[in-house]
């Protein structure tokens, strides 16, 4: 499996999901913020997928089972709190992973060093909203906690080693847990309980096994290119 495809698919799929907020975000500033984050991720996806082949063919012509993204990033947006929970889990993971890759000398070092600076803003955005919703009203706190709980079972997969991606996955996991734990504590939220590393944990995205909503997302993402091959602006 190509590591560039796994990392590129994470960025591409989350970019598409965030793009679905266009026209639906709670306030204009968030509309712009989520679109900006989606754009950064799309830029990363283009670089990473181009390392593995033709970016358009890879994005638009692969079947569901050929995608190697984490199941976390394909999960539907849910409410705003659930989107923020997904952003918090994923951007913290991506920041820690890119930090390691940027320090190394693999083929991913230049992209990781470049994208890390962007991802720091993504994590900062998710962290601020987690604090604001968690330490906000009883209602916002409940919704934020629900979002975190709903997606928790998808976080075990984050630390499954990717072949060809030179990272210390054990270190990544301990740092991720410490950082998420500290943010949730400050936000007066509880670290979710439940399966992450047992038979009940979700996972398998890296092997091409995806959840039901992913097929529908891909259909929307790919239909224009499949209906009008080679279409350009």
């Amino acid at each position, binding site marked *: 499996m190509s590591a560039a495809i796994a990392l590129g698919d994470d960025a591409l799929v989350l970019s598409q999901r965030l793009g679905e907020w266009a026209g639906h975000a709670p306030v204009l500033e968030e509309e712009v913020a989520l679109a900006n984050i989606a754009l950064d991720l799309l830029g990363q996806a283009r670089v990473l997928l181009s390392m593995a082949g033709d970016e358009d063919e890879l994005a638009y012509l692969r079947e569901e089972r050929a995608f190697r993204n984490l199941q976390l990033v394909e999960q539907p947006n849910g409410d705003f709190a659930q989107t923020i929970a997904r952003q918090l889990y994923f951007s913290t993971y991506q920041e820690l992973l890119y930090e390691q890759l940027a320090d190394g000398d693999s083929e991913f070092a230049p992209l990781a060093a*470049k994208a890390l600076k962007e991802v720091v803003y993504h994590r900062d955005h998710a962290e601020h909203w987690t604090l604001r919703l968690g330490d906000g009203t009883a209602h916002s706190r409940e919704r934020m906690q629900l979002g975190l709980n709903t997606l928790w079972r998808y976080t075990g997969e984050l630390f499954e080693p990717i072949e060809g991606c030179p990272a210390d996955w054990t270190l990544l996991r301990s740092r991720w847990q410490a950082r998420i734990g500290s943010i949730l504590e400050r936000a007066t939220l509880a670290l979710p309980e439940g399966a992450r590393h047992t038979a009940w944990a979700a996972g398998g995205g890296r092997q091409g096994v995806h959840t039901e909503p992913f097929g529908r997302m891909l259909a929307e993402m790919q239909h224009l290119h499949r209906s009008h091959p080679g279409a350009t602006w």
Partner: protein
Amino acid sequence: MVTATPLEAELMELAGAVPDPEMPMVSLAELGVLRGVHLVGPGRVQVELTPTYTGCPAIETMSSDIEQVLHERGIAEVEVRTVLSPPWSTDAITAEGRRKLAEAGIAPPRDMGGPVPVTLAIRCPHCGSTETTLLSRFSSTACKALRRCDSCREPFDHFKEL
């Protein structure tokens, strides 16, 4: 490092004078995104450009604008390559570029200097007050944040540090 020939220096100046497509008050040279212009054969030139943000959509317009000015100068073949390393930083924006941004109402980025980012106040480009509030970390383009001045109450864009 190979010293640039007089022709390369001239082409670098031409390419560097191309305005940024999203912030036309600054040129590509002032923005610090033009990394080099190399003559690789008779009438063949390779240009190295680095994106501000990985997904910056302006890079395609920048490339075609550079191609156009170099074609007009009589260079038949122009290839614009995107380079990521070393990553672009807002510290690459020249002093003149910062002055022009501020003049156009965009608070320029603070100097990152070393590995530890500075936390100096961001000055309102309209009235000069240092009392400003962050409204959103993301604004009209990937590279800007939205702030409001607490003194004159005007909202403004801030070119955020990267």
